[in-house]
């Protein structure tokens, strides 16, 4: 038997116990807290980018927290997830710590990818997150393949692919859904319809608004849900996860969300129709959830304020700690190129 993990090299920044962090999501307050945490991390990342501490690019998911946390709360620790370059939210939701995420974005030697991955390549197999995919659509075939492995071994696991509305226009989407359907694989395709692909509103690139209809081309069951409402997400995804896990074949879920952030870096979103952002901000999953927790009597305003303060403090501490960590040195780029190096891979003179 092949081990699917060959690591000898543990990254300390992930040590805080991803699975405990995942298990915590059973509690609605913890779910709210995780959304707050994601928001706080994204804000810090945005700031670090502005100050020049972050190199390259970074794609934030502000506004999309309910979907990430909802998803993480309904799958099992041994399920696996293929997500995208817009991956910090999913990573944190699944259980990676703020320190882990931030240290990788800062290119630290002890980051979860050793500083060679960065913002677009979050990964931690301890929480089931494959290295996030920076090529649009590339995660769908891989999730399909992961599901095939579970099917072959008759394991009770599912694979989840989560990708954007824009990814439904690429060939890999079509081919993966078809293959998953004909092989009846335990894979759940989640489409995070945040209304934009880069600077293009969905209608510039896509002739239909409700993307879940595309599942019909493959005889795949599908559903649309409100991605701003964590309870709706949990209900919808929960059902879908059960369906997929019960060997009914794949399913596709479209979640309507909204990307509060620009596409990347300093994009301020000049292309948004007037009032659209404001309209969606009213449905901000963080504030909506807070209101709900209060109205359901599950928490007091003071408790939630304290929680927020605590989380912001933890995230700020994580940033400071990550900044104190060593940047990856040149040797890092030579690590893990090969799992089984051949003698002829000699590097030259």
């Amino acid at each position, binding site marked *: 038997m092949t081990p699917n993990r060959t690591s000898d090299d543990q990254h300390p920044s992930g040590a805080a116990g991803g699975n405990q962090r995942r298990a915590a999501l059973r509690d609605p307050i913890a779910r709210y807290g995780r959304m707050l945490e994601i928001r706080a991390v994204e804000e810090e990342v945005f700031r670090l980018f502005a100050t020049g501490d972050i190199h390259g690019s970074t794609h934030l998911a502000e506004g999309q927290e309910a979907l990430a946390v909802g998803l993480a709360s309904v799958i099992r620790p041994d399920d696996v997830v293929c997500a995208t370059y817009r991956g910090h939210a999913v990573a944190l939701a699944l259980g990676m710590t703020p320190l882990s995420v931030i240290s990788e974005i800062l*290119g630290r030697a002890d980051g979860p990818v050793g500083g060679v991955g960065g913002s677009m390549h979050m990964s931690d197999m301890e929480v089931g997150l494959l290295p996030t995919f920076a090529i649009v659509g590339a995660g769908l075939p891989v999730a399909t393949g992961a599901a095939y492995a579970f099917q072959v071994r008759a394991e009770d696991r599912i694979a989840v692919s989560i990708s954007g509305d824009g990814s439904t226009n690429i060939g890999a989407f079509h081919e993966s859904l078809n293959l998953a359907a004909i092989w009846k694989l335990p894979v759940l395709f989640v489409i995070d319809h945040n209304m934009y692909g880069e600077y293009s509103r969905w209608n510039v*690139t896509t002739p239909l608004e409700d993307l879940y209809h595309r599942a019909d081309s493959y005889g795949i069951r599908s559903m649309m849900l409100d991605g701003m409402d964590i309870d709706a997400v949990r209900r919808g995804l929960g059902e879908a996860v059960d369906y997929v896990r019960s060997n009914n074949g794949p399913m596709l879920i479209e979640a309507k969300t909204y990307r509060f952030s620009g596409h990347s870096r300093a994009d301020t979103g000049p292309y948004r129709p007037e009032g659209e952002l404001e309209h969606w901000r009213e449905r901000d999953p963080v504030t909506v959830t807070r209101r709900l927790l209060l109205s359901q009597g599950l928490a007091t305003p003071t408790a939630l304020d304290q929680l927020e303060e605590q989380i912001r403090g933890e995230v700020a501490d994580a940033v400071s700690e990550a900044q104190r960590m060593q*940047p990856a040195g040149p040797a890092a780029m030579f690590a893990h190129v090969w799992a089984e190096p051949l003698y002829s891979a000699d590097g030259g003179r």
Partner: protein
Amino acid sequence: MTRMRMNQAIVAAIADEMRTDPTVVMFGEDVAAAGGPFKTSVGLLEEFGPMRVRDTPISEMAFTGAGVGSAAMGLRPIVEIMFMEFLGVALDQLVTQAAKLHYLSRGALSVPLTVRASVGPGTGFACQHSQTLENWVTSTPGLVVVSPSGPQTAYGLLRSAIQHQDPVIVLEPRAYYGVRGEVHTGPDAMIPLGRAQIARPGTAATVVCLGRTTAVALQAADRLAEIGYDIEIIDLLTLVPWDVAAVAQSVRRTGRLVVVEDAPLTGGWGGDIVSRIVTEEFGALVAAPFRICTPDVPVPYGKDLEKRFAPQPDEVGRQIRSYLETGEVPAHWWTREGGMTA
């Protein structure tokens, strides 16, 4: 002459071609309304309208193929592939279709398509957005491959590419989109495809560069000149079919050949240069030719790592100096610094 960034020179080249030839059109992801992710099409939609400048879905196979089909029908499309890696989902249309349609139509069709793709390291985009990948397109008879080294060559090569009757892929070093330089525009500034330029004349060694590495080698040359080594730098500009005659001529004068490239040790384009020259000019070589290239690892993310990964002026200077002083091929930095092979 105007001072402009490389991305502005690209806009200027496209605009100048669109003004003179109504069959020139452009499309790609966010090239129209947003002016391009690298701002290489700012203002084109406004000037030329949505019939000629279009945003596409995230569908590289379809829109690269749309470039092929519209070129075969007489347009001169410019297709933007934001990052060279995205050709990994569309290579078929360029290599197996575009480059073969003229052949397979017995010359009845031609495909005056220009594909522009950003390439290479230096911007912190990590290993799925930082490769150079010239080798995906270099052994494709029927396809011209060019790569500019800065604003002026970006302007001149792109205009020639657009006017060329065969498909051309332009590999733009993305680290240089923001680099400024004096640019001479207009038809006289066109750079003929297939011709290398001597970016710096010299006698001590022939140093062949492409794209990002030309400026790197030029900086190294200045420092080498201070200590009395006068190297000749050839900016290849066209990688396929490359200017064998120009490099051979230089090597016959200098007796020494060095290639500086962003591609990896194994399979990088420099192998083609060294191999062909050594076959044709063996007698002229007074020392072993060698390549200053990147190690056989995926492009790393961290700022210092990425900088170390790709040839920089210091390292290029050090290597060439050692070579000229000793007559021996110097060790790669990763060997010299010890035990770093993957």
